[in-house]
């Protein structure tokens, strides 16, 4: 259990190289419009990661870009879209319709329970959700896939509760190889503080074998330990810390910056078409060497100023959102 301080703080490039082998089962933090670890996603694409097995609940552009860039072999999910910005992830839709990836559908609660069960260290969790739905009946993974490591041997199991007689679905737990989250503040040792909703980050991190945290700020040890009850992940669970301000762009990071509607609409326009998606990747991912350069590309200081969160509200109330 070696936990040397200095070793944890590293660059994006090092973190991807060290912790994301091809074929890894990866879970990415954030939810819908907030805190997806986008800078990390870009770096995975730049390093041409292959055959990733993604597990999550409601990802959006993070997964969509990875799928579109050809990094993904297999997904277990509840939803892939950007809600009001794009009602379906365009690259996900195409990859599924073309049979380019394997997929398995659960509900949001179903996925989050499976991850929570992984965090708790139990092999499955019972639930009433999804009863009566085709998620119980239709299976995406083949029998061959079901034999692979980190893939549950069955999608789920129906059972009569031995205490009450009621019907329950047993969902297999998930313990990803790596979870990557984007937090507001981390100390140099790995203690994580998230402002606002935690979404599933807590469970995703605690379920995983390894945890990478990208963040807006890295602070000294003492700063987060005055209110330990406000921290969500104990330092020893974190394997890598990467400071990437605005690292969730185009998604929001509560109390730091808002989402970028302009970029999100642009993404959904471009990603629908193979050719324009390739141009988008070339321009925003392959064609830039650092996250700083990317931020220049998306509009630099002027754009970032517009996205900057109001101190009290935690978002940008005057942001033009249509």
């Amino acid at each position, binding site marked *: 259990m070696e936990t040397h301080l200095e070793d944890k703080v590293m660059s994006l490039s090092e973190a991807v190289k060290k912790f994301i082998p091809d074929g890894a089962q990866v879970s990415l933090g*954030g939810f819908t419009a907030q805190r997806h670890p986008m800078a990390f996603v870009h770096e995975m694409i730049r390093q041409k990661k292959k055959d990733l097995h993604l597990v999550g609940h409601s990802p959006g552009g993070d997964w969509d870009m990875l799928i579109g860039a050809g990094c993904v072999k297999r997904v277990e999910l509840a939803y892939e879209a950007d809600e*009001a910005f794009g009602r379906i992830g365009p690259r996900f*839709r195409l990859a599924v*319709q073309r049979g380019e990836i394997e997929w398995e559908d659960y509900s949001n*609660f*179903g996925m*989050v329970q499976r991850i929570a069960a992984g965090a708790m260290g139990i092999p499955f969790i019972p639930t009433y959700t999804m009863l*009566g739905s085709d998620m119980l009946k239709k299976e995406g993974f083949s029998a061959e896939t079901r034999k692979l490591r980190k893939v549950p041997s069955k999608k789920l199991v129906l059972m009569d509760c031995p205490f009450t007689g009621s019907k329950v679905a047993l969902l297999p737990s998930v313990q990803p190889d790596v979870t990557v989250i984007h937090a507001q503040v981390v100390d140099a040792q790995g203690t994580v503080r998230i402002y606002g909703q935690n979404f599933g980050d807590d469970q995703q991190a605690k379920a995983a074998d390894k945890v990478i945290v990208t963040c807006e700020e890295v602070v000294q040890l003492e700063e987060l330990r005055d209110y330990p009850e406000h921290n969500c992940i104990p330092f020893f669970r974190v394997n890598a810390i990467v400071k990437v301000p605005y690292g969730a762009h185009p998604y929001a990071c509560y109390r730091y910056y*808002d989402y970028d509607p302009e970029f999100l609409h642009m993404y959904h326009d471009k990603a629908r078409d193979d050719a324009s998606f390739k141009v988008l990747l070339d321009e925003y991912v392959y064609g830039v060497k650092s996250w700083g350069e990317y931020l220049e590309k998306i509009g630099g200081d002027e754009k970032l100023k517009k996205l900057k969160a109001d101190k009290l509200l935690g978002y940008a*109330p005057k942001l033009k959102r249509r």
Partner: protein
Amino acid sequence: MEKKYAKNFSLMELMAVAAAREIRDHEIVFAGTGLPMLGSMLAQNTHAQNCVIVFEAGAVDCKLAHLPMSVGDPRTMRMASTATGLFDVFSTVLQRGWIDVGFLSGAQIDAYGNINATCIGDYKKPKVRFPGSGGSGDIACLSKRTIIIAVHEKRRFPERCDYITSPGWIDGPDGRNKAGLPWGGPEAIITTMGVLKFDEKTKRAYLASYHPGVTAEQVKENTGFDLDISRAEETEPPTEAEIKILREKVDPELIFLKKGED
């Protein structure tokens, strides 16, 4: 006070008002993005000031000052009672039985109020893929009752969904019970043409009201399953007060009001 009905309103506004009216005061509401947010905010600003809005992303009972564009929008944090995450909200609020009413939508809705948000065609070789359940399947299973919101087109209202993402009455009055669901079921479908409700005995959808400017027959023609229109009357139009609040307080930025739904 006499009700003054509005003379000018859009279809989106009519639907938002219809959604709002389904919420009773003091109820706990599981709201999704778009019309459910408009409806919940409107309800909170009119007849249901004590209704509690819950978002699956974690925020409970926020006091929205700006319309969210997502259930995980930072705008949902404002003045919330608690703000945890998906696991807490889905398990200790929804599955524990605290949600009075949830809102749903989807690509297909069938005669029993089942919803498809997953795919058209075979699940493993779909012709068209949709985003997937998200929280929709959970809300459908575990809310005490649900309200469905939909664009009314024939292809979107088949007799049977290609894939049941979010169970309604499944196949009739005993459907949910047989499936093991502890409670719940859809109460109404608010569409771009009218409001459908479910027959007490059969649990099939029937037309309860058609919106101003549409006839019951037109609704029937645009429905893929056999729709009983014998009980239909005209939808009560929005009041001037409702439209005013909707435009000035709920969505002054015109985030959803001027955009088409889906």
